[in-house]
């Protein structure tokens, strides 16, 4: 990195020197017109310099240039022209650029097609947008960029996975993530592990190993019509990644370096903390200072007072500001990429090496990823060959534990008492290296310093991806293409708990080995022809897809030998094995017919045969049709106003299978060894079903694409309607059936919505331009039906408050449910007449919904000369989140709102004790308490049996009891609106003009950028935590103990030779 900085400094010096030089020049003037008349705002540039201007209202320009220079004329939507200066007057006639009108996009099977020929919406993201401000997981970079594409990270941070959703949830259960296809080969995006109800680790996903520097484009095929050719795996949409090939420029060789260095700091902080009361309970602290360490219900903080803590030290009893934030460090991410590219006409080789290192804001947590990618392409006669090999090695140390995990550092810090300095806990071990008992060995509040220093988790990933393609161009109209892809993915995760860790007192080591293999082969014939006004393309192909995963989990408990962390050191060892094998064989075909570049008609059909369904039910065929009408072809006279307009319409059906081994009951022996007897049982908790049929998703989509005002404005609109029926659902069932779930075909789920994409170049002057792009989408994700006798399906559950997230018939998918505060007909909270505490419903109610009402993105680019400023904003509105963190803040007396009634209650209790009254019932009597009875009064009513009426609650309670009760019995008070506007990215780039670079043209490009990812949150509703802080990728509105999320700032440097 040091050498990189030195290089940057040199270049800055160069920049300062060059701008001082002035040139004396000759004036050239002229007019720029097109077929209809003068062009306003066309740009004129002296080639190889930064000198330029734009045309005025009459199309006139004047610019300093010497005879012998070359002028470049350009205008959006028109072909650029380069004209040598031979006189002082140069008039130019511009011609419309047919390239712009026939924008090419990558569609299913990697076939490049005119955008105007498509009857469905395809979103596109350019690789160059992803390479400056980098994310450690490239999928996170997609947030806010494409309408209808929702991206959510988890609290897992740099090494975590990302949830990507296209047009809502189509399957009630299942991961609902799109299929990623890299250069024609589907990728294994397995998430090896995620945090659930009991917590856990986010072990990352497959997409995170893709190097953004290798990406040419990402095409987002949202609906089934776009994805129909990929079959069952594509029922949640497809993201096609096209990687870069060798440069096809003039020179044989090119070398490129791209480096980014960012500093990562905390984005959201845990700061809604009361600053009055300290550690303890019932207004008192414990002398021994080892209980109630995670409660702030003690007496008022008082600096003069000292307490002796577990470490034998006396510390003042004062409020510690920024206590949680101080635990975390400044993180650092460095990504260095080198690209070597060679090109000899027919043959190209491109080699990339990327080294990514990240040191997390969580101390002692870091990761590195090395990616090697080699792509070679050549042609031998009529045969084109293209091979890619990719090797990725990823090393992650100490991933953060998430959710309700005992080792979740964020969770354990956020409830630490207001007067308990987390730094005292640095004293985490005894002289023997054992756990230092600081809080009575409470297993739910483990010392975070112990967790990050003494316990370890580590993962290694070795991923080989190989990809070969042979195209045989038989005749100009017909080619046959064979693609073979294989992926070998070995992942090892080891999780070690040192003996004496609360909850794992005897120590534990778990090594999980994931051995995933995927093989994909495809044969495709493509025929293209033109007959008069008709264009015709037909494809036919066959595909075989094989997946073969084997997982072994070795667990050792009771560590006999502490000197070495290996399974053999443990007295008790167990092994668990699991397999996942599946094959899908498919044939497919498509036909496209175009007429006069104006009307297009597409049809596809695909048949899959999947090994996961029973014979006779495992063959399913599904079609799609789509049409597009380029109506702007009819109104040619208005080209300046509406140069491009297209209407599209499509319909599709996609089938989907399920996981393997779901058809029959199986048995397994317990993983634990016994003597004298054997433990065996039915495996799993799912009633198998041999009669499963494939899931069917039907959809139709319509919309238009337009470009206005000489292409300066574009507006696209899409409406889609999608129903998935006959879903293969693991339907939750009464445990009395013996099982928690049964596998059935049932249910129907609707996704219907709009997507609008707006793009514009608002300002275009000589030196300055301003682009603004907005996308907006709204999805209605409604559960139409479940199965007979069931109106609700539980999707996820949290540990506290009996809260769960479900699919409820007639409601939006993702209802957050649980017991609610009981209310009378007037909506008043009903309190218990004896205790003064609120009461709760005995049935579960819908209290919120985890789905966004709408989502959008805004990106803008400002260019001034060689400076470019881009900003990307991500907007999500209308979802709810159950925050267990907030719940914990209230339960432990840390939230500011818990101050109400405290002083009053403590005074009242003091008076009661002074008066010698032991019974609360007695103390409540006015004649006994003489007006001293006080505390927290729940706003509610109680049922007065005597009068048969509702009476205003008059029983004061200890606020600690009140918050304890409401934070244990109902989630209602801790469900928050989770809307937000985030700034996802800011970059300020300086691209060095060619004249600054060396004269010989050895250096082709130098760029330096200031970059920021997630620099700030513009607006959010929920305090203290990051709205994206869910602990897993089910995206279902549950949050707990999320670490502070990360913001990063830094520099990017790019140089190309």
């Amino acid at each position, binding site marked *: 990195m040091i050498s990189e900085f030195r290089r940057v400094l040199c270049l800055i010096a160069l920049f300062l020197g060059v701008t001082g030089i002035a040139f004396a020049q000759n004036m050239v003037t002229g007019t720029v017109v097109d077929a209809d008349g003068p062009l306003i705002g066309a740009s004129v540039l002296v080639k190889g310099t930064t000198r330029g201007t734009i045309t005025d209202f009459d199309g006139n320009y004047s610019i300093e240039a010497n005879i012998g220079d070359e002028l470049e004329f350009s205008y959006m939507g028109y072909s650029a022209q380069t004209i040598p200066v031979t006189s002082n007057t140069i008039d130019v006639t511009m011609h419309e650029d047919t390239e712009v009108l026939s924008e090419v996009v990558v569609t299913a099977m990697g076939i490049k097609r005119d955008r105007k020929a498509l009857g469905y919406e395809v979103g596109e993201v350019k690789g160059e947008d992803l390479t400056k401000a980098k994310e450690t997981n490239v999928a996170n970079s997609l947030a806010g960029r494409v309408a209808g594409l929702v991206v959510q990270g988890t609290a897992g941070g740099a090494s975590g996975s990302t949830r990507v959703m296209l047009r809502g949830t189509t399957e009630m259960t299942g991961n609902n993530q799109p299929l990623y296809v890299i250069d024609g080969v589907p990728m294994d995006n397995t998430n090896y592990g995620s945090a659930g109800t009991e917590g856990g680790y986010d072990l990352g996903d497959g997409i995170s190993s893709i190097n953004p520097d290798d990406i040419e484009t990402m095409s987002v095929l949202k609906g089934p019509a776009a994805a129909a050719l990929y079959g069952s795996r594509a029922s949640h949409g497809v993201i096609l990644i096209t990687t870069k090939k060798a440069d096809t420029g003039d020179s044989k060789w090119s070398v490129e370096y791209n480096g980014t260095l960012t500093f990562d700091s905390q984005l959201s902080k845990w700061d809604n903390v009361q600053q009055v009361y300290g550690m303890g309970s019932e207004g008192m602290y414990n002398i021994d200072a080892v209980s109630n360490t995670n409660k702030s219900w003690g007496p008022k903080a008082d600096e003069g007072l000292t307490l002796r803590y577990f470490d034998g030290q006396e510390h003042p009893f004062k409020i510690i500001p920024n206590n949680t934030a101080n635990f975390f460090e400044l993180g650092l991410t460095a990504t260095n990429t080198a690209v070597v590219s060679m090109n000899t006409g027919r043959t190209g080789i491109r080699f990339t090496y990327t080294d990514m290192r990240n040191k997390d804001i969580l101390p002692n947590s870091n990761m590195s990823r090395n990616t090697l990618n080699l792509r070679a392409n050549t042609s031998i006669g009529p045969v084109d060959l293209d091979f890619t090999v990719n090797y990725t090695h990823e090393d992650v140390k100490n991933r953060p534990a998430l959710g309700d995990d005992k080792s979740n550092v964020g969770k354990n810090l956020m409830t630490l008492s207001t007067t308990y300095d987390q730094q005292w806990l640095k004293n985490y071990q005894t002289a023997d290296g054992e756990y230092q008992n600081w809080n*009575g*060995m409470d297993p739910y509040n483990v010392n975070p310093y112990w967790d990050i220093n003494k316990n370890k988790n580590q993962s290694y990933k070795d991923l080989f991806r190989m990809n070969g393609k042979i195209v045989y161009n038989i005749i100009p109209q017909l080619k046959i293409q064979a693609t073979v892809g294989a992926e070998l993915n070995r992942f090892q995760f080891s999780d070690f708990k040192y003996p004496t860790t609360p909850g794992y007192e005897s120590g534990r080591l778990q090594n999980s080995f994931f051995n995933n293999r995927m093989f994909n082969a495809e044969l495709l014939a493509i025929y293209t022809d033109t007959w008069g006004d008709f264009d015709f393309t037909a494809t036919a192909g066959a595909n075989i897809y094989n997946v073969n995963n084997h997982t072994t989990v070795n667990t050792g*408990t009771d560590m006999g030998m502490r000197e070495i962390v290996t399974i053999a050191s443990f007295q008790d060892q167990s092994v668990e094995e699991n397999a996942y094998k599946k094959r899908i064989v498919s044939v497919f075909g498509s036909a496209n017919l175009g007429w006069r570049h104006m009307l297009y008609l597409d049809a596809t059909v695909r048949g899959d045969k999947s090994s996961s369904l029973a014979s006779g039910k495992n063959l399913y065929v599904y079609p799609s049709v789509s049409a597009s009408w380029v109506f702007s072809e009819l109104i040619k006279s208005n080209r300046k106003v509406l140069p491009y307009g297209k209407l599209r319409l499509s319909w599709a059906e996609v089938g989907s299978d399920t996981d393997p081994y779901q058809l029959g009951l199986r048995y397994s022996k317990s993983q634990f060894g016994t003597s*004298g*007897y*054997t433990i065996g049982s039915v495996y799993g908790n799912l009633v198998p079903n041999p009669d499963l049929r494939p899931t069917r998703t039907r959809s139709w989509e319509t919309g238009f694409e337009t470009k206005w005002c000489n292409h300066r404005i574009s507006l696209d609109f899409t409406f889609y309607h999608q129903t998935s029926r006959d879903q293969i659902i693991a339907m939750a*069932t*009464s445990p009395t059936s013996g099982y928690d779930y049964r596998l059935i075909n049932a249910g129907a789920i609707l996704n219907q919505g709009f997507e609008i994409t707006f793009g514009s170049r608002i300002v275009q002057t000589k030196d300055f331009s301003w682009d603004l792009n907005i996308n907006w989408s709204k999805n209605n994700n409604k559960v139409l039906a479940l199965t007979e006798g069931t109106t609700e399906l*539980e999707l996820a559950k949290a540990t506290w408050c009996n809260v769960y997230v479900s699919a409820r018939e007639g409601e939006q998918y993702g209802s957050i449910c649980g017991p609610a505060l009981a209310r009378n007909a007037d909506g008043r909270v009903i309190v218990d007449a004896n205790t003064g505490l609120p009461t709760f419903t005995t049935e579960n109610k819908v209290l919120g919904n985890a789905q966004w009402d709408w989502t959008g993105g805004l990106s803008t680019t400002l260019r001034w000369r060689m400076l470019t400023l881009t900003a990307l904003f991500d907007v999500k509105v209308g979802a709810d989140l159950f925050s267990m963190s907030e719940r914990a803040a209230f339960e432990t007396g840390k939230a500011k709102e818990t101050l109400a009634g405290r002083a009053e209650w403590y005074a009242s209790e003091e008076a009661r004790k002074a008066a010698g009254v032991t019974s609360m019932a007695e103390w409540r009597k006015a004649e006994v308490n003489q007006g001293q009875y006080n505390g927290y009064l729940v706003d509610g009513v109680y049922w007065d049996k005597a009068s048969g009426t509702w009476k205003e609650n008059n029983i004061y309670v200890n606020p600690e009891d009140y918050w304890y009760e409401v934070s244990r019995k109902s989630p209602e008070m801790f469900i928050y609106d989770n809307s937000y506007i985030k700034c996802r990215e800011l970059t300020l780039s300086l691209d060095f003009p060619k004249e600054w670079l060396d004269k010989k043209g050895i250096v082709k490009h130098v760029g330096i950028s200031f970059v920021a990812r997630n620099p700030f949150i513009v607006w959010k509703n929920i305090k203290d935590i990051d709205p994206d802080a869910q602990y897993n990728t089910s995206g279902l509105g549950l949050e707990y103990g999320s670490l502070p999320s990360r913001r990063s700032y830094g520099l990017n440097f790019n140089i190309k030779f």
Partner: protein
Amino acid sequence: MKKNLYILLACAVVLASCSDKIYEEINTDFTKAETINPAFQLSYAELQIFGDMNYVDVHRLYTYAFTQHLMGCWNTTNYGGQHRMDDNEMARPWNNLYTAAFRNLTDAIAHTDGDKEQVNVNAALRIFRVYVGSLLTDYYGDVPYTEAGLGHLTGVSQPKYDTQEELYRLFFKELKAAAGQFDVTAKAIDSDPMFNGDIEAWRKFANSLRLRYAMRLSGFYEKDPASDIAVLAKSEFLDALKAGVMTSSADDACVHHDKVSYSFGQESYKDFRGNALSKYFYGNDPANNPSYVCQTFWEKLYNNHDPRTTLLCGFYIDDFMSISTGEGRLDVTDAVLATQAANPDKDIISTVAPGEFSWDNWPTYPNISGSALDSRMQEIKVTHDFDPAKDPRWLKPKLANNLLRSQNPGVIMTYAEVCFLRAEAAAGLLGWETGDIAQEWYEEGIRAAIYFLTDNYNYDYVLDSDIAAYLAEPTIKWGVTPEQQKSQINTQAWILHFHNPAEAWANQRRSDIPVLTPPDPAGKNPLVDGNAIPVRLCYPLKEETYSLDAYQAAKDRVAGDYSWHARLWWDVK
């Protein structure tokens, strides 16, 4: 069009070419079996009763608080002690027993029914399923049984709830039929951590269970001996006796558990080998959460000079307790007891009253110079550089260290219980013609209960003279009135059933002995969901979603408002 036809033809050829056989092979999980030895499933079910941390937690959370054996640790007082209803916690038997023991028993029964070779394991499976069913109905009332656990066999996903009366009638029939099915010439039960395949022991167990269930219905007999159900109860009891019940502690139905290390990590919830109840006694935050004995239990032992007092309870300073085993506790039992004995006027021993947390009633260290306690404390100050007087909560009795071992047996039924059942049947209130002498069986029961402890918990034998002295205690000595006798028998059963909390609660509700006083509702910790001690657990709320009709019908059958204060059918008053 022709082209499309070719494409379709090609489709057909390719798809047809992948044969179903290969597909079936691919879709066969090579890590799991398609069949299993049913005895393995029996072992699994037996071990779950005391080995499954998910299920057994219900005892720490509710059962022991309701029986007032334990109190004071956060979990026990917060839920059971404060009468706090929590759907998740109440659902523990429901969610865990049905999906593990019950499911596997039902599956294995279905696979062995009618198989002449497998009659023995089939009988054992049926007997054990009755036992699991009785646990469920005694917690919740009407519960699914006849249609339960059949998810994959008949596809029933919303089984009906059988009434408790139907269930008890069925239990008798099943037990009798199963006990009659054992055949020494058929295949032995080759995996059985309870009886090690001893079919004679299984037969006696089945008959002894009939005694237990007949006694459960004795309330009907006390109310109206002529009623249909009363007649059934009596005849079942007599018939079972005739058929042969447990005759010595060698017949005890105790599930063997292994010695495993204490861990509360996720995989230990799948590990049924160790005794999970012992693990909870040890506590998952041991230094702060030991198993304090409830005042009610302590007084029943200590005040009556029960020789089991120090076998079940002890006084410990836990600051040096190992956090991976139960070792390292400083045992101060002798010093505390001696000092209390020497100072009968002082309350040296502090106890946890029902509804209290261990920290609610903070004891003060009794500074009595020259006392046994004082000299022990001086000793500890020196040996451990530690002043125990600072937090003298060790003056509250806790469970004895030997109860914290993971290899302690899972107690399903004992000979001692059979003795008490026989004593009660023969005693005055029932007076069933068993031919037994009530007092003999009462005293035999006490002896058997004491031997049960010394046999299974690594204690030295209690001297016969100590037992004799105990039997001569005024409150223990065989009483005169039938009410007194019933009270004595069931108090002894309650002490015995400390090791079998589900039975302890059921028998206490049935007999109302010992009479338990609920915590003071206006006390320090409010009683959250009702003042009386709950008499059942509520059905999980989820049943409303997944099995509404059956669930609603069962709730509607409950007289009055459905709540955890509604008595079960056999809980006759």
